[in-house]
């Protein structure tokens, strides 16, 4: 699956991502885009800074893509996650999944984004309209699980 997954600093190109999974055998293609939105937890957001433990993040993304094609047999998968400073409506993550059937395409797409959020070492610092900024901590609850 090498090449199917990338950490990028330039804008994600949804069309290119989709082109990487298209094949004549596929009847369904799903693109998921995570986008920087203007409000989070009631606070006005101006942008988000994404950083990563890059070597490990790339490795975890590849392992997610590899596991996806085992769990959802016949799927093709392409994933890009962007790093750096993103402003409103910028795409932070793009996931393209194609499969012969839509059931598997939806399931694989959903599984991949949840796994990314669960275990890929990427962090975001939100910048707010009042000039402050803060690291986002969705939950510390997964820690114990990942360390087994």
């Amino acid at each position, binding site marked *: 699956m090498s090449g199917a997954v990338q950490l990028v600093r330039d804008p994600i190109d949804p069309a290119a991502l989709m082109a990487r999974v298209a094949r004549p055998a596929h009847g369904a293609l799903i693109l998921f885009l995570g986008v920087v939105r203007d409000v989070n937890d009631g606070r006005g957001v101006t942008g988000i800074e994404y950083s990563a*433990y890059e070597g490990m993040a790339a*490795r975890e993304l590849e392992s997610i893509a590899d596991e996806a094609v085992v769990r959802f047999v016949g799927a093709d998968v392409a994933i890009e996650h962007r790093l750096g400073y993103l402003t409103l409506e910028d795409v932070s993550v793009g996931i393209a999944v194609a499969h012969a059937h839509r059931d598997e395409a939806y399931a694989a797409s959903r599984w991949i984004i949840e796994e990314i959020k*669960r275990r890929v070492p990427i962090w*975001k610092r939100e910048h707010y309209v009042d000039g402050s900024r803060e690291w986002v901590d969705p939950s510390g609850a*997964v820690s114990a699980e990942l*360390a087994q």
Partner: protein
Amino acid sequence: MTVTVLLFASYADALGEASLELDLAEDATVADVLAEVSRRPGAASLPPAPLIAVNQRYAARTARLRSGDEVALIPPVAGG
């Protein structure tokens, strides 16, 4: 033996550093690294049991280390 400790995001902010070199006993585990780190200035704001990776894989606190290992303290992830 020597290991490199990597700090990221809020953890790097807390300790004011992105990496440390630690000298440890030959039979050291991840738990020993955490004990070492907890004595550094700023470590009070780290959680008692942060998520750990050794050589870019998630690892338990009991994992034995070897010289040259890269030990990362992983703040709560927030990708996507």
